[in-house]
């Protein structure tokens, strides 16, 4: 069972990555901070369930992602609604602009042009390596809709990333 010191070590070494992952999902700094906080408490309370052969920071990472999804579902249920059709950029809101500044350039900047549903599916598939079936269950949709969202996300990102890299040159 992981000790208090193990948790502190994990926080010191990996909490920035948990936060970054949660921020990619929520695009809201407060929600991302809360997700990590909730994840730590959950992980501590369930530490007796931790498989000692696994890595503590990876385990907390997964719990943090679930916590971020839970908070997002609670605060922005529309994020889990797949779109009937592809959408064009809706322009930056003050919130997305702030999130963009927090996230930096390139991939994160390009991701601000995805719909919430596309971003969620892409982050969970590409960055978190979830299975399509797991994503579909998490977002309450079907595998087909998740696949289509990922295809759209990749198409948009390829275009956006190309444009961003062109701007940087």
């Amino acid at each position: 069972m992981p000790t208090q010191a193990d948790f502190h070590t994990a926080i010191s070494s990996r909490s920035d990555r948990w936060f970054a992952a949660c921020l990619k999902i929520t695009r809201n700094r407060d929600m991302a901070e809360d997700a990590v906080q909730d994840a730590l408490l959950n992980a501590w309370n369930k530490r007796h369930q931790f498989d000692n052969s696994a890595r503590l920071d990876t385990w907390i990472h997964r719990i943090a992602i679930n916590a971020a999804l839970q908070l997002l579902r609670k605060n922005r249920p529309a994020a889990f609604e797949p779109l009937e059709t592809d959408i064009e950029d809706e322009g930056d809101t003050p919130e997305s602009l702030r999130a963009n500044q927090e996230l930096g350039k390139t991939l994160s900047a390009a991701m601000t042009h995805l719909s919430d549903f596309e971003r969620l599916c892409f982050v969970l598939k590409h960055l978190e390596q979830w299975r399509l079936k797991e994503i579909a269950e998490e977002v309450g949709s079907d595998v087909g809709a998740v696949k289509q969202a990922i295809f759209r996300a990749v198409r948009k990102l390829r275009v956006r990333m190309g444009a961003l890299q062109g701007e940087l040159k």
Partner: protein
Amino acid sequence: MNDDTLILYYYNDGLSDSERKTVEAAIHSDPEVAARYDKLCQQLNEFAEVDVAPVPTHTVERWHDTIDRAARQSSVHESRSPQRSFNPFSFAWGAAIAAVLVIGISLSMTQIDPGIEAAAGTSTAFTRGVQVHFRDTYGQLAALPLDSAADRNELVLQIIEQNRLFERVAEQNDSQDLARVLRAFEPILIRLAAEDIEPDDAEALRAKLTFELNVMLTKLSRDTSNETDSANTGIQT
């Protein structure tokens, strides 16, 4: 063969075995497909970059505090005897009072009639419950034994537990701002509960908390008054 199929092949997910074999054969036999797949892989690999957002030091400290607090609470729960005698300042007694208060608020919220007055009444009942909690906390902090670390720890843990009950009710009541305020009290309370804190520092933290509690009590009084006025006049303030 379109790029969507190549994307699924890249992820090794969403294609049947036979579909995978078909894609694999196409990549090996068709230079155009192979070139497209190479380019796709290159771009998708670039997407895997991890740009880590900086986290403020105080936020990381809050996360460390969360674990310390949870560990402290675990050890308190483990060491607490179930046959403990009645003590009006005990943690269990304090939590029970808070629980009764929270249940009372919840019941009053469910018994309110629909309509404008109900809307105002629901939030007013909840707000008044929080006001009682803040006033109790204010009183408990005033009586806080600064010279006894163990007693101080015991009492502050009780306050933290009550605070968390109200934080949960605030979330259930969709009062996100109030939940955040209640949550913000926690790190200060945790520092105040630390056994190695100097008396001067404890006094400073107590002063900070009582100041913040006063601010919140004033704000809530104003809000409650405005809501009552709105309900009576039908005018939103």
